[in-house]
């Protein structure tokens, strides 16, 4: 550069400078920095919303395990759920999230009717019992891979993948996993529950059809999340999904959520 020559020192020049100095003494910055990097499109990322067109329900147990599906569950005023509905909901769930997935505030407070999933729902138990499908010797590998049993992204690798059209050698094992997991969960539940027709070991959340979720609504000005209600739970699970699988699986709404998380990360 060359430092720009001082502007013509017109009559007002010194006075304007004095005025600025007084502002400086009052704490006004003398240098402004322009922030331009990707502000605009990224801001529009914050505006994103997604629509859940058909009714979507979420079942959460005391450990924070969660099932997402479209089945219904009868609920008493006390909040107890019909056990057989619960079993069938779990069986037909589209997604199963492992223990710890649903944040505390979404879980049932207590569980007096026996919790049928406690036994095998803890941390990594659900991984190690199975043969490692790919022959990896790291048993631990299966822990992380485990939750995908109900999130069949490898069935649909490539955009043409139709349900059930398993594209590669991994998917077979994913499928086995899925069935193994479910069979076990169900059997156990039946055994434990015996005759009890109602259970308070779960909470049931419903999202009606055509619900629009704008993740940014759950975001406070300082970037922390304040999730509540069924939609908040949905976002929490989407976040969990994102943590594990990234954006590949197409969990509904995930791109929108990711765009916001990216915004927070890259702004």
């Amino acid at each position: 550069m060359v430092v720009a020559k001082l502007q013509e020192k017109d009559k007002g020049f010194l006075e304007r400078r004095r005025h600025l100095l007084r502002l400086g003494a009052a704490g006004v910055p003398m240098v402004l920095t322009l922030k331009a990097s990707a502000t605009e499109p990224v801001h529009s990322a914050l505006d994103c919303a997604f629509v859940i067109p058909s009714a979507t329900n979420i079942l959460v147990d005391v450990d924070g395990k969660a099932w997402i599906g479209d089945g219904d569950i009868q609920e008493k005023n006390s909040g107890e759920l019909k056990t057989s509905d619960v079993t069938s909901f779990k069986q037909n769930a589209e997604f199963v999230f492992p223990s710890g997935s649903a944040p505390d505030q979404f879980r049932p407070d207590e569980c007096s009717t026996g919790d049928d999933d406690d036994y095998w729902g803890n941390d990594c138990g659900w991984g190690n019992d199975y043969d490692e499908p790919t022959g990896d010797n790291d048993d631990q590998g299966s822990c992380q891979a485990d939750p995908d049993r109900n999130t069949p992204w490898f069935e649909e690798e490539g955009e043409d993948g139709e349900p059930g059209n398993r594209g590669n050698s991994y998917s077979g094992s994913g499928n086995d996993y899925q069935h193994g997991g479910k069979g076990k969960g169900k059997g156990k539940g039946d055994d434990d529950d015996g005759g009890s027709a109602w259970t308070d070991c779960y909470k049931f959340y419903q999202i009606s059809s055509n619900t629009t979720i704008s993740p940014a609504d759950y975001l406070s000005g300082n970037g922390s999340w304040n999730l509540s209600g069924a939609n908040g739970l949905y976002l929490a699970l989407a976040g969990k999904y994102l943590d594990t699988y990234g954006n590949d699986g197409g969990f509904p709404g995930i791109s929108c959520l990711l765009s916001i998380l990216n915004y927070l990360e890259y702004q």
Partner: protein
Amino acid sequence: MKNVALSDLPPETVKRLLSEGRLYLHLGPYVTALSTKDAGVREFLTDMYQDCSILVGEEALVDFSLEVRAPNLVRRYIRRQIVADPGFYFPAVPLPVKLGPLCLEMGMNLCVALQSFRQAIFHAGVVSDQKGGIVIAARSGGGKSTLTAALMEEGFRLLSDEFAILCAETSFLLAYPRPVSLKNQSIDVVRVFAGADQVSDRLTGTPKGDIAYRRLRKSDLETANLPAKAKLILFPRFQAEAAPAVEKMDIADAAMQLIASSPNYQVIGEPAFHALMQMLDGVEAYEITYGNTEDSLMLVKDLWEAVDG
């Protein structure tokens, strides 16, 4: 490779090229490879972009690749969503499948905003006549697109509805004409003055309300390789019932707002700084407030007449 108009390609060729991801749309400074299997998106494209230039032949070197598709799992789970995938980290919003055209348009905008670093991009509409260009800065609810579409009917050519694309070497504005996106009430306003056949079907229930697109004009495509020198920068403010008003803006304020609206100014660095400063040396900037389209046109025409040719 040769250029043909999209409308010259038989529908089955368009369909095949789109499904193979080899429909190379050559528009303004960019070549975009489009890929979709969605019939709604294809229909929108063949209608709104019918006069656009398509590169035909072997494989092209493209600036952007954009795939508009149903997200994998969604197809199975919620069957009615669609997503634009520009092939980089920035994810698009999944939308119900009937909103595919919106997805396409947003995806194309994202490509330019986030992957193009040769020209400085500012969020603004641009129109021009032989005198030079008018930059209409984007402000939420400011009415940029409505005003842009209205000026198109007043004999101005459309450079872009979404981006002021500033050439770093010449500090001239480049054209990237695309269908003008109209929201809510402005859809009917534009249908009235541009003719209903110039406006696409209304997409309802988008995250931004109703959206429709004003068709690309052949004349704007034919002049798309002509740059324009900016002469006037407007910051529109629409206020229901407001009396029309004009306020001259400090160029420094205008510069600040433009930089804040740029997705790539920071990335380009010094050439963008020089180009922007050079552009601003030759312009005046105004904030205009208005309550209806007639008022906004009147204000702009007055300001434009005062600008030297």
